């Protein structure tokens, strides 16, 4: 099953590219011309999202530098112990929605210090693999089209992340505890 999935992962992009270009040629689309026309937008999009990225990444960098995440982890620790959640997972839970590179760094730390057989490593792996960096996604996608009023998108993102964390704990408990 996994090897099939890996194979699909490897082939999906090359197949999409071949398919798109072949259909383009068959339909008599000037593919080189259209490709370069479309590609011009790459620079614009990247530049357009800079202000939104600066806002969100600076705010989150400041939060991480201030030690507020460790503080929150300390406050929450006694509560989580009751639910059989190891304390070293806490920073990951908090950082997951905020920073992709931060979350990956914390996960590597947990995996390296707790070791391959630890419950923490399994739970952290499931948590990291099952969710996205919500605030980065919001900043990039809304930034690219100039939306500044996010409406319910923020609360959905946070709630879905919470549900993800809770179900990760439950599933991990069922399978590996």
């Amino acid at each position, binding site marked *: 099953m*996994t090897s099939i*999935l890996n194979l699909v*992962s490897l082939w*999906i992009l090359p197949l999409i*590219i071949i398919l*798109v270009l072949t*259909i383009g040629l*068959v*339909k008599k689309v000037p*593919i080189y011309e*259209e490709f370069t*026309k*479309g*590609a011009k937008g790459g*620079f614009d*999009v*990247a530049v357009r999202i*800079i202000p939104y*990225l*600066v806002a969100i990444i*600076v*705010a*989150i*960098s*400041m*939060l991480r*530098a*201030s*030690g*507020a995440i460790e503080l929150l982890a300390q406050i929450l620790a006694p509560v989580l112990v009751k639910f059989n959640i190891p304390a070293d997972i806490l920073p990951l839970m908090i950082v997951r*929605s905020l920073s992709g590179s931060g979350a*990956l760094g914390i996960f590597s730390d947990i*995996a390296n210090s707790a070791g*391959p057989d630890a419950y923490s*490593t*399994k739970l952290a*792996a*499931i*948590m*990291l*693999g*099952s*969710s*996205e960096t*919500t605030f980065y*996604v*919001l900043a990039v*996608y809304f930034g690219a089209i100039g*939306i500044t*009023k*996010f*409406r*319910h*998108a923020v609360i959905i*993102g946070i*709630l*879905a*992340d919470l549900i*993800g964390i809770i*179900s990760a704990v439950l599933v991990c408990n069922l399978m590996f505890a």
Partner: protein
Amino acid sequence: MNYIFFFLIVISIIVGAVNGRLQEVVNSIMSGAELSVKVAFSLIGIMAFWLGIMKVAEQSGLIKFISKCLKPITKVLFDEIPSDSPAIGNIAMNFTANAFGLANAATPFGIKAMEDLQAENKDKTTASNSMCLFLGMNTAGFQLIPTTVLAVLVGIGYKNPTEIIAPTLLVTTIAFISAIILSKMFQRLYKINKEVQDDKHS
């Protein structure tokens, strides 16, 4: 978002001051700003490539074709956009790329989808229901194989790293479905609020 932004920055400064880490907080403004530009610039090349491929797909009618095929599903989920909108095709491409862990390709597809949704949007600075739903589904991060996680696990000598694939898939599916249900719920709440506001104005 105004409150979140304010809250993040003020909390950071206060906690930093109490912890005696104000210098680090100030330094992080510099490094964070630099990182933002690096992230944006690192996207330019790959973004240009996929936007180019997508332009070809659009011109040949492929995106429209995908949109049409997915009509039965999208009519229910994205009920506010016309079913022949290219947004659907781009949303489908975005999810395919995400599902296979190809974040680099997923972002340009997603941005293109957002542009298409923006074309149907009346208020250009406020997110539409469809946008919130699309982003909700995206932030839930549906993925078939967590490639990065597997790489780290292999790196630390985890004996059977593939055993985490099934539980991860289960969790991400739960989050994904919750995001859809939640956004349909909140969109109704918001609508009521908006009507109240409109009444006040009139």
